[in-house]
């Protein structure tokens, strides 16, 4: 079973939009890193910034969502090139996306809650 063309097109659209989000998120993330390490990195300082902060929570959740969408679609394209196509790989990519999302959201929850 191969996926219908419409779904393939929408996957590309999702990868494009998630790539745009990632580009913005990575820049924000890098600036935050530079700012955060300016006088040494400490757990207390990080948690002080993120605990109970809805804006940071939302930002990192969006970042995680973008990664969880973006990475499996791209990896699926690469699998296809090695001759690995069809339902099996599509299911595996869903599992990959869900796993990334689970780990990511768990990490976000840990610093925000």
């Amino acid at each position, binding site marked *: 079973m*191969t*996926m219908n*063309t*419409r779904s*393939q*097109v*929408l996957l*590309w*659209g999702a990868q*494009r939009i998630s790539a745009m989000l990632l580009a913005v998120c990575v820049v924000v993330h890098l600036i935050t890193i530079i700012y955060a390490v300016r006088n040494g990195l400490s757990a207390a300082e990080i948690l002080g910034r993120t605990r109970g902060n809805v804006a940071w929570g939302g930002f990192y959740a969006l970042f995680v969502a973008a990664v969880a969408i973006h990475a499996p679609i791209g990896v699926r*394209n690469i699998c*296809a*090139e*090695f001759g690995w*196509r069809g339902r099996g790989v599509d299911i595996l990519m869903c599992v990959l996306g869900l796993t990334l999302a689970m780990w990511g959201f768990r990490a976000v929850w840990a610093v925000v809650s």
Partner: protein
Amino acid sequence: MANLQVKIWRGAEEGEFQEYEVPRLESQTVLDVVTYVQRRLDPSLAYRFACRVGVCGSCAMSVNGVSRWTCRTHVSKVAPDDKLEIAPLRNLPVIKDVVTDMSEFFDKWAKARGRFTGSKTRKDAFAEVKPESKQRKAVDAAIECIGCGVCYSACEVVTWKPDYLGPAALNRAWTLVNDVRDVAQQERLAAVAGDAGCHACHTHMACTERCPKGISPTAGIAGLKRAILSATLKGEM
């Protein structure tokens, strides 16, 4: 001038390089070299050419590992050490020596609906297309393709995925997508969408780097992806 040391592929899919010595001349092209071998050294050598001036698209070969149109490739540009290795184009079946079977390459143009479909008759007036319109400019940038197959043989995705339509067929489809007179747009977008169509392209631009006509199939393919997404979101596909 010193002689050129020339290796040319002999055989079909199975075969080997054979060595020839060819006098080095001024303003010599790679096609001149192959012609010299066939006329003076070994008449059994099979190769293809017609126009000798970069119009017909029949003379492309792999020259020192790079796909090129041989009639407009000067030896001085590609063989500073007077050594040439000439092989058939990659990604196409070899018929004999450096002659490849281009049928699949052109069948893919048909699959990509690379044929104009109009609605007017000879009784209608000419369509007016403004030269400065966005669509006409997109056509201008892509229309001069000579069908040489250089881009197709340079594309890694064609190697990995033999059913991929490839840069030349998709570039052709892009010129028609921008042809305001064409009435088969939906069918064409459907024909080039998906994992064996434009969505297989990784934008690594080997086709664009190699195209002797300075066309960027990569840009056209990106345009197709955008056009298809917008048609899909509008529910037209």
